[in-house]
């Protein structure tokens, strides 16, 4: 049976890096998959890998993780829109949207490697490979 634990943005946004990673590891080390609203900062991702490496044993072989964006984060699509007015409107909309939703408008998945074999991300699709 697969077990997921959802961490809403308001729950982790007030935590510092160590507290955030402790929270993630507490769940992952109990063989559960973390679904975290929002994303880690690049330095936090590096710290997550560092701490994972420090915990590797015969039984805990690491993690699989990935951040998923609702629109696929595809920058090429934005360029196709050539109208200046449309671009400006979109830019203002983007700024407003990012101010209110930006940091929480994505989902970070972290799973123990013995359960989540791989997470493959293409611009339009996420494949979660589970060890069976």
């Amino acid at each position, binding site marked *: 049976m697969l077990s997921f634990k959802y961490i809403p943005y308001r729950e982790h946004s007030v935590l510092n890096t160590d507290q955030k990673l402790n929270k993630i590891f507490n769940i992952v080390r109990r063989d559960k998959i973390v679904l975290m609203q929002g994303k880690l900062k*690049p*330095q936090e991702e590096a710290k997550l890998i560092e701490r994972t*490496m*420090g915990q*590797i044993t*015969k039984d805990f072989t690491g*993690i699989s993780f990935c*951040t998923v964006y609702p629109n696929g984060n595809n920058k*090429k699509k934005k360029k196709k829109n050539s109208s200046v007015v449309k671009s400006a409107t979109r830019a203002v909309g983007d700024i407003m949207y990012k101010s209110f939703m930006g940091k929480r408008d994505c989902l970070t998945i972290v799973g123990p490697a013995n359960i989540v074999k791989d997470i493959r991300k293409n611009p339009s699709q996420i494949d979660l490979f589970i060890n069976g």
Partner: protein
Amino acid sequence: MIKRFKSFFTRYINKLFRNKNNVKLGFYGPPNAGKTTLANKISMDWLGEEVGTVSKVPHETRMIQTKEQVKIKSGRKELTFNLIDTPGIATKIDYEDFLKFKLKSKEAKSRAKEATKGIIEAIKWLDSVDAVVIVLDSTKSPYSQVNITIVGNLAARDIPVLIVANKTDLKKASVKKVESAFPQYPVVGISADKGENMENFYKELFRIIN
């Protein structure tokens, strides 16, 4: 706020005084992408010495390997580099994976342990490099979280990046896929093993540093 200011200030000072004549050039990427092969190729081209050994078994490089005072010429320009070959960054290491390469159990366990330490060391070195060549295997999907984490960390540190789509001599290679995954960075397709397109690689390398 103070932390942010301190970090910005440190980065600015480092950038200002970055010694362009002794560039610490890091080679980063996932395991088996060809980092050591490329570092060897460069070092052999300009110094006549190799940096490290290469192998089909993942995590062959488990410690930082350096080669200092490598003088490289491109066109009329010349720069001196310290090459820093880092262990491949991964989020998981299972010693059983090494058994598939016919390593003995004890050897595989020891390799796994050394590999974890190597990854920690590689991440720590992100704070000490002046420029980075990210080496990716162009026959594989570039959209892995490890690649994104490496790129994100270099961008956060304002470190110049050149992405190498390696192994272009192989049938499945796709430089375009790498380009579309990282449109904000220069990408150069090469075969480090066969020494293909190295001229362009050196040109792009000088461009990101200047």
